[in-house]
């Protein structure tokens, strides 16, 4: 942290409550102006701690509460790393609804289902409310005093053998964690998050010198996506959905999705092509070789790359990929007839031992098609690297586990991630974790890792704490999102604490200079005040009598984010390497099916399995609720004598699991898919004991270049266990539950027109 000067007045002057008080926001543009700190005309109060309605005299007004009047507070959604801005609707001191913040460039007023369900995490009945310490092998609830003492003993000292693992993070949490680890003298900082496409980021970094280049989906006329589910679970779904909406306006862009299992994006594609898993790179290479026949495209790549494209046999690729040669030529024609286009590489293409090379081959197409600089744009440079998002990946988790196994760490701290649930069985994360002498978990919920820890610190929900964060995929570089507590802690002041506050206390024990801040709130506000000079249009005092600081704070909190100044960076110059792909291998006779562990928009990687709204939201493709299932092509299922609901055993060489079959047409015939998100053994009443986690049976295969886990490389065998389990799907279209193909029965409920017709009509309009 770069701290220059602290404005002393601020720390004492305005408490969190009075501060918030000034932050009223009206709904839908009409600002609701709140009066200042002296407002006492409140008669009817709701005591939210005990949730009883009390009639209190005017002398003890609680803030937040203006009976019958709704207020909106700007904050940031922390349900996934995308970092959408939200407005929280408050009435009677309760957060009631989250809505997108229209001025946030990430989501422009919209929100996805996970964001909507943020409230259920906040009010979750299974939230941890008391710190817990393991005594005699059992976690017992203890007082905060005892917990703090324990914590200071464990973490409040210099310790180079302390290992820190957190989920994707950014902003001042990241900065504070960095500061803490510096103070402790530990270099063992690991970041692990399952879904951010680490292989893709590395490939982008290598080719475009930008791990996460800006993608202009809306500018493209054609998007060819190799398994990038940008409408569902890829990086920043709401942001991409916004761009997608523009992309679909007339003249309408064309979307081709190539992936073994249909994702939400595939379901919206103009052409969805099922491909044999692991051959995406080969297809891309074949397309590149076809393009290379034209000097226009060949001229954009170096000769060594061109050489590697020469001897690609289209027929052989057609055979390997299960995509006909005719279709490959049609794809080639599409690519040459639409400009600019955009070729995306997603997790189903990258999750192999040759994943980096596949991504390399796919991204190469962008260079040949001259999309770089048109639909793939460089990032601008922003200062404060401490605040930048850290997304991490499987490789870091592996290092963490390896370190634990080697006995390198005596203390393991986990925050915001759940490795014991996520890690495949072969990694032995649970056993390795048990090896650490002391395990500390900062968590809102009793998840698997938390329940395996020795010290459990219940933390505030994102709606109860101050924080800042940067979006994992920013549209405008340098956007720093703010979080503010929108209501009193749900379980009272003596239950949960802000993660920042706890960590700051620990820091203060090691490094006295952190005693300048009495709370994480002041730490964040000070930091922001300090950053004022580097902000774009920092808010100023608007009300007479307001100090500039107050004006600033009010301004940024009502916006919900600040914009850091950024420097224009140089245009991207692609650095190309020849693609080195292994020859596609045939099917494994023992394990004939490719396993696709597919993320669901909703449950994400499993972190939302405890939110009943999301459990009850049917899967977008199979319409199944509250369960795990095995997606299987109707032909395959027929040949194996399986129907929807039959229970099967899925066996890989590393393990097996049982789940119910869903016959599903949108999947390659040699592939099965199991959704992520279920299979929790802890995590509260809504998640525990439902379904299975496909990650558990993954084989120990890693991407050769990045060391990331090859999530899609596992092959499995299937055997039927029993008939008809209790699978619940809303797609019971054809009266008997035997297939999942609902037809419209001629009802014309969804009508379809051609793009040509669409463009013609929009022109007329």
């Amino acid at each position: 942290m770069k701290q220059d000067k602290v404005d002393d007045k601020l720390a004492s002057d305005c408490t969190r409550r009075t501060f918030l008080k000034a932050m009223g926001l009206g709904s839908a543009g009409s600002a609701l102006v709140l009066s200042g700190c002296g407002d006492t005309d409140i008669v009817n109060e709701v005591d939210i701690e005990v949730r009883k309605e009390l009639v209190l005299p005017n002398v003890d007004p609680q803030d937040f509460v203006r009976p019958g009047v709704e207020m909106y507070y700007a904050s940031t959604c922390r349900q996934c790393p995308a970092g959408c801005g939200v407005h929280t609707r408050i009435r009677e001191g309760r957060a009631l609804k989250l809505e997108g913040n229209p001025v946030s460039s990430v989501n422009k007023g919209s929100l996805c289902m996970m964001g909507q369900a943020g409230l259920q995490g906040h009010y979750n009945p299974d939230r941890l409310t008391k710190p817990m310490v393991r005594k005699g092998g059992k976690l017992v609830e203890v007082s905060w005093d005892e917990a703090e003492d324990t914590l200071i003993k464990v973490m409040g000292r210099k310790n180079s053998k302390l290992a820190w693992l957190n989920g994707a993070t950014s902003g001042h949490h990241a900065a504070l964690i960095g500061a803490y680890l510096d103070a402790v003298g530990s270099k063992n900082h690991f970041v692990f998050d399952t879904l951010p496409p680490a292989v893709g980021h590395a490939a982008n970094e290598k080719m475009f010198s930008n791990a996460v280049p800006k993608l202009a989906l809306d500018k493209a006329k054609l998007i060819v996506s190799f398994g990038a589910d940008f409408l569902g679970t890829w990086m920043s779904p709401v942001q991409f959905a916004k761009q997608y909406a523009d992309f679909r306006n007339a003249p309408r862009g064309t979307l081709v999705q190539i992936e073994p299992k249909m994702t939400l994006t595939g379901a919206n594609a103009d052409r969805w092509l099922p491909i044999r898993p692991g051959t995406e790179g080969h297809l891309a290479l074949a397309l590149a070789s076809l393009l290379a026949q034209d000097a226009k495209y060949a001229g954009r790549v170096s000769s060594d790359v061109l050489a590697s494209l020469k001897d690609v046999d289209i027929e052989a690729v057609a055979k390997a990929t299960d995509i006909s040669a005719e279709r490959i030529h049609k794809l080639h024609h599409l690519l040459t007839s639409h400009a600019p286009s955009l070729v995306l590489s997603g997790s189903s293409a990258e999750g192999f031992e040759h994943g980096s090379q596949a991504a390399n081959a796919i991204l190469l197409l962008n260079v040949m098609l001259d999309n770089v600089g048109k639909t793939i744009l460089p990032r601008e440079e922003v200062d404060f690297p401490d605040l930048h998002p850290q997304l991490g990946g499987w490789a870091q988790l592996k290092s963490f586990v390896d370190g634990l196994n080697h006995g390198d760490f005596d203390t393991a701290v986990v925050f915001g991630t759940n490795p014991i649930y996520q890690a495949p069985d072969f990694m032995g994360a649970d056993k390795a974790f048990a090896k650490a002498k002391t395990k500390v978990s900062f968590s809102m919920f009793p998840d698997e890792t938390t329940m395996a820890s020795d010290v459990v610190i219940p933390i505030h929900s994102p709606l109860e704490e101050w924080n800042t964060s940067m979006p994992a995929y920013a549209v405008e570089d340098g956007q720093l999102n703010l979080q503010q507590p929108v209501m009193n802690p749900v379980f009272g002041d003596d239950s949960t604490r802000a993660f920042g506050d706890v960590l700051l206390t620990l820091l203060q024990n090691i490094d006295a200079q952190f005693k300048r801040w009495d709370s994480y709130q002041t730490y964040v506000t000070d930091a922001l005040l300090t950053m004022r000079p580097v902000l774009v249009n920092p808010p100023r005092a608007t009300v007479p009598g307001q100090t500039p600081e107050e004006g600033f704070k009010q301004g940024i909190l009502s916006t919900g984010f600040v914009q850091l100044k950024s420097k224009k960076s140089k245009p991207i110059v692609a650095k190309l390497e020849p693609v080195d792909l292994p020859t596609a291998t045939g099917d494994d006779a023992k394990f004939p099916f490719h396993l696709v562990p597919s993320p669901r928009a909703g449950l994400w990687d499993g972190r939302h399995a405890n939110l009943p709204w999301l459990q009850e939201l049917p899967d977008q493709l199979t319409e199944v609720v509250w369960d795990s299932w095995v997606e299987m092509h109707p032909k395959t299922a027929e040949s194996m004598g399986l129907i929807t609901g039959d229970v099967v055993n899925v066996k890989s060489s590393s393990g097996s699991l049982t789940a119910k079959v869903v016959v599903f047409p949108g999947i390659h015939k040699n592939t099965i898919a199991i959704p992520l998100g279920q299979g929790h053994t802890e995590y509260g009443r809504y998640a525990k004991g439902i379904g299975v986690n496909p990650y558990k049976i993954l084989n120990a295969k890693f991407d050769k270049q990045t060391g990331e886990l090859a999530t899609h490389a596992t092959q499995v065998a299937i055997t039927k266990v029993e008939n008809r389990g209790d699978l619940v799907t809303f797609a019971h279209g054809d009266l008997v539950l035997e297939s999942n193909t609902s037809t419209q029965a001629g009802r014309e409920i969804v009508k379809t027109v051609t793009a040509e017709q669409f463009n013609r009509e929009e022109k007329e309009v």
Partner: protein
Amino acid sequence: MSDYSMKDIEWAKINRDVLASLESPRKEFWIVLSVCIFLVLCGAAAEVYQYNEGLGTALMNKPHFWQLYISNFVFWIGMSHSGTLLSAILLLTHADWRKPIYRFAEAMTLFSILTAAIFPVIHLGRVWDMYWVLPYPNERGIWPNFRSPLLWDAAAITTYATSSILFLYVGMIPDLAICRDNAKGWRKKLYTALSIGWMGRASEWMAFRKTYVLLACFLVPLAVSVHSIVASDFAMSIMPDWHITSFPPYFVAGALYSGCAAIITLFVLLRYVFKFEDYMTTEIMDKTAKLTFAIAMVWNYLNLSEYASIWYSNDMFEKEVLLEKFFGPYHWVVWGMLLCALVAPFAMAFEKVRHNMWAMFWLSLVLQLGMWLERFQIVSPPLASNHEPWTWAVVWPGLIQLTITVASFGWFTMLFLIFCKVFPSVSMYEVKEMVFHRRKASSRTDMEDLDKVKDDMIKAEEGLS
């Protein structure tokens, strides 16, 4: 078998026989009665559970908002038809064979209505607010919605139930007087009160006859309207295969059909239990069976013409339902209905069957099963494949619904048995009238016969000479 078979019964014996039925039935009566009471208790328990937990326990859902309760409602309303309607029509057409059987048929009507009326109550989501359906003046100015066929139902059933009770009661007054004259103890008090001083004076008889005929005139159109209105619950909706013009006559025919079948069942039962062999003769059974057969053919025609019109219209929505009915998951209900209600009645074309009491008993049960299945297939399959294919779903009635359904049969039988035990189930005065008129007619025929013999003899003599 002659048309005048019952002319020789002594009037006093009629009184004796029928009054005996109030006193000493066979012991099967008590067995059946206790089984019925047990069923009713089971049903009550099921209803209490459903009331506490919510209607979901009955396994109704979206789109199957209606299920067995409505099927049963239609079934029982249908059952109620034959009694009053047949009694009234046969009265107006002077068919004297109605006389020994109309009393219990009318009682059956009454108790069917009482059974049917239970189902809308059980069916309601908020039973405790049921009185909101009634048009009572209130300070909030809230009225029921008379546009709803359910309200028509309420009006029609109220009218029908009260009219049927009155028709039954008025027709029973002379018999109540007989009972009064012969009873002792609490029965004496009961019959004295109910017979309101009937003494059989000529003026009473005159007023009685006029009234009875006038009531019959009302009851015929009323009965037709009641089941048409029940049909409107379906026909007035826009559901495919419910929104059918021919539903009202189809329902009325079906109602008569199942009602006649029920009459046959109870005919045989009463004849056996109360030893009414002298009154409920094979002759009457033969006529009832013929009538049933005729009605069955009307129903058959309407049923088949419904299929034909759907098929011919080629309407997407209705055709889908039709195909699902025949080949979908409910197919055995539909085929079962066709077998039981469309094919089985042809057995009645044979005199041997018509004259065999127990054959008719079982046959009538088969017909009723068919008609019950018909009501189920009217309600459920169209809901299962409605306008909106996404919501298509097959749901079978749950245990709660089945229990309550079975209990309704127990409830009906219980009420009916109690009625037969307390009130004369054969109309004594009308049987007497029948005997009186047949005796008169036969003496006339005898005399004609004598003339004929004389003529023959004369002719023979002439021939000889």
